[in-house]
């Protein structure tokens, strides 16, 4: 399943960086995405996330784009007499909507297979040791850090917020949040050191002879 997913990733990248992709190549891309999504071992998860796309905020642009394209794109001359919509604009809007749909579908297939931790591991394998470790750690520690910042903000709001002396209030809020984040960092450091991170390779726990 490695190569189909890799090709899907490349497809997603090309859909993102080539905004004018339209016509047969776009239809072929959509067919590949649907094919890979239905053939994958995690097809149940893929279908679940595709069903999750059936929501108004996501469906509305798909319906509106062709209509808006027909109304506002194209030249006045290419409209048949009395028709409010331009066929060329309608087609351009349809391609835009299909490109958006392809992005949604491919994104759902990839996220069902590739966790952020896989990305971190891949970065480690590429030799970016610090970056892979840092990304994995960032993903783990982010909820706690955000909670610490949000609690500091709530505490400041209860004491009147930034209304009186906003610079001092902002400074105190940031100092408080920073201290809490650093304390969380110290806890993470302890956990990392317990697992042997930062120690020489041969002194790591679990590496010696049984």
């Amino acid at each position: 399943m490695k190569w189909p997913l890799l090709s899907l990733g490349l497809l997603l990248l090309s859909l993102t960086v080539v905004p004018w992709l339209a016509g047969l190549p776009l239809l072929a891309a959509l067919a590949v995405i649907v094919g890979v999504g239905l053939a994958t071992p995690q097809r149940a998860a893929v279908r679940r996330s595709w069903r999750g796309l059936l929501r108004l905020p996501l469906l509305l642009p798909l319906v509106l784009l062709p209509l808006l394209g027909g109304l506002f794109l194209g030249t006045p001359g290419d409209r048949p007499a009395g028709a409010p919509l331009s066929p060329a604009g309608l087609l351009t809007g349809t391609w835009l909507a299909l490109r958006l749909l392809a992005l949604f579908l491919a994104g759902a297939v990839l996220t069902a297979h590739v966790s952020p931790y896989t990305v971190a591991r891949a970065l480690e394998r590429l030799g970016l040791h610090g970056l892979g470790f840092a990304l994995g750690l960032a993903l783990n520690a982010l909820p706690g850090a955000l909670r610490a910042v949000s609690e500091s903000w709530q505490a400041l709001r209860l004491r009147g917020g930034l209304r009186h002396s906003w610079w001092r209030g902002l400074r105190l809020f940031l100092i408080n949040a920073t201290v809490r984040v650093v304390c969380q960092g110290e806890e993470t450091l302890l956990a990392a050191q317990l697992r042997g991170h930062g120690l020489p390779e041969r002194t790591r726990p679990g590496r010696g002879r049984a």
Partner: protein
Amino acid sequence: MSSHTLGKERPGRRIRELIYAALFGALWGALEITVGSYLHTLLPPGTAPLVGPVMAAIGLTVALIGRHFAPYRGSLLLMGAVAALLKVIGPGTVRWGPLLGILIEAGSAELVLLLARRPRRVTYVIAAALAVASTLGQRFLLALIFAEGLGTAWRGLIYEGGKMVGLTWAAAILGILLAVNLALGALAGELAWEVGRGAERRLARRWEEPAP
């Protein structure tokens, strides 16, 4: 405990600094995903040239505070890389502008701190001011990468800037935008220095207190 010896006196210094860089990079990334998206959506279109510098100033404040706790060469770049990767993994499609923007801002600030060697208040202010001002040049870099033409980027900048400040004279528009960017950056650098020092002092007091 002095300003930049916090990690050096304890064992496992390298891993500690890596953890701090990851934590502050994660905060920068989270702010880019949440506040950045809100600013781009909520602010009226005429203020577009201001959203980038405001986000850069917020992000650099966080990163430069983090630099107090990860005082090694390249830590700002690592924070920028973590923030950029979170932006890629986060909701929405991959957009090259913000991605490159974060890396350029982190790189510019890192370069200034590298050249200055010893971090001081003035170094932080200059680093942040130049990094925020680099947002003005980012659209030219993107225009070069995507072959849109430098002239188009220049006209876009003057048109959007002119709409925001209500002027038509290109030099005045550029001057005002540059001054606003430098001022925002300087404020971010000053705040980061103050907060970093304050947090260090408070942590030093906490760690030096005897356990109950």
